[in-house]
């Protein structure tokens, strides 16, 4: 195996594009090193992106936040403005593992590892986050939900790297939340995860919403039908019941050691309701 730590994105792209065999990007390494250790992959090349300028920075601009691909969960949690604007995204990222993992794990890595149960991804998808991707033909920006295509598989082409995650600026009276079900109180992998982001008008009527589900399909799902149940409502019981039904209807889970299909479908509805209530409470300033 060869290890490289380039200082520019172009050098990183060139290394990844030019290497025959298995090449992997190393940011936090909390998935990559485990996969190497357990012999699931044996890369010929590992490109550490942490020395590239901007990769470890959170930039705040007129359009929102630009989070470098190597920013750790701990750094997200310490960023006050980000926590205030997108509490659901930060909470979801901070749910992943204990302090040791938070010191290293990144949301870009969580997206690119393409686990259907990745905690930060439903929150990012609900938030309308996008990813800046650098490749041999320049840069492109895509919605986060288009990156994972199945467990461990992404739409990234050879030589492409996620350089940053973008989170939009928040309109007033907006809130987001992420909830997951796990069979213990902390430190576990989601059986179901739900992210909700919404905006209310001055009368408390929902004007925009996005709902995303994790661990109920081969990848994280954006569910427009579930968002439709919220838009135009005051997030009342009737709207929440329609939201739950739409969320459950979108699930296509598998049975596995963490939960059955039936359980996941039901819980997706329950958590969608609770996450919408939590997001609405935040939008109301509570």
């Amino acid at each position, binding site marked *: *195996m*060869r*290890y490289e*730590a380039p200082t520019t994105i172009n050098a990183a792209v060139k290394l990844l594009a030019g290497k025959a065999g298995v090449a992997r990007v*190393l940011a936090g*390494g*909390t998935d990559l*090193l*485990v996969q*190497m*250790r*357990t012999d699931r992959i044996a890369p010929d090349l*590992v490109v*550490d992106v*942490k020395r590239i300028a901007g990769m470890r920075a959170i930039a705040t601009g007129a359009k929102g936040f630009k989070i470098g691909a190597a920013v*750790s969960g*701990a750094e997200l949690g310490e960023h006050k403005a980000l926590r205030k604007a997108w509490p659901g995204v930060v909470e979801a990222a901070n749910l992943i*593992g*204990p*302090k*040791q*993992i938070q*010191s*290293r794990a990144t949301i870009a890595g969580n997206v690119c590892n393409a686990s259907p149960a990745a905690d930060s991804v439903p929150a990012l998808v609900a938030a309308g986050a996008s990813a800046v991707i650098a490749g041999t033909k320049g840069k492109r920006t895509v919605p986060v939900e288009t990156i994972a295509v199945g467990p461990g598989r992404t739409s990234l082409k050879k030589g492409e790297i996620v350089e940053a995650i973008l989170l939009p600026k928040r309109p007033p009276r907006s809130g987001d939340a992420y909830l997951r079900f796990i069979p213990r109180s*902390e*430190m576990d992998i989601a059986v179901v995860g739900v992210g909700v982001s919404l905006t209310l008008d001055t009368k408390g009527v929902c004007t925009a919403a996005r709902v995303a589900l994790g661990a109920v399909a081969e990848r994280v799902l954006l569910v427009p039908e579930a968002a439709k149940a919220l838009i135009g409502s005051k997030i009342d019981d009737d709207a929440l019941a329609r939201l739950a039904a739409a969320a459950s209807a979108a699930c296509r889970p598998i049975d596995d050691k963490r939960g059955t299909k039936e359980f996941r479908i039901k819980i997706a509805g329950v958590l969608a309701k609770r996450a919408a209530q939590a997001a609405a409470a935040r939008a109301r300033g509570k």
Partner: protein
Amino acid sequence: MTKINVSTTINGDAVDYLCDAESTLLDVLRDQLGLTGSKEGCGTGDCGACSVLVDGRVTCSCLVLGAEAEGRTILTVEGIAEGGKLHPLQEKFLEFAALQCGVCTPGFLVASKALLDRNPNPTEEEIRFGLAGNLCRCTGYDKIVRAVQAAAAEMRKG
């Protein structure tokens, strides 16, 4: 295969080493530098026995490549005591019998230090969260939590 030349700081000392690309920081610490305080429990970031501080943040050294340490500042359990005087956490772990077999203890000490460096007066819940990445199969955790509380109280006195 060519080795990678790494210059880093470990427990306050400038250290240079050559390592393979695949070697973890834990491999380098234990097998090349003789710093065997950090233990390998699981090798996959679940147990915390290999915890070290990298630039002040608690990290599983089994999930860091040796090559990544270039230019960083590393603290291992060997660097916690100062000049032969035990750190208050070490004193209190002994006093409260917060260890039995001892394999998890270096990781707990490093993680506890990271916690108290950022939060000198943690609640019990904050301690339990702060140490959730460290597994102990002997003590049931309670004595460890009491020892960290006692060390925090002592350190606040100065």
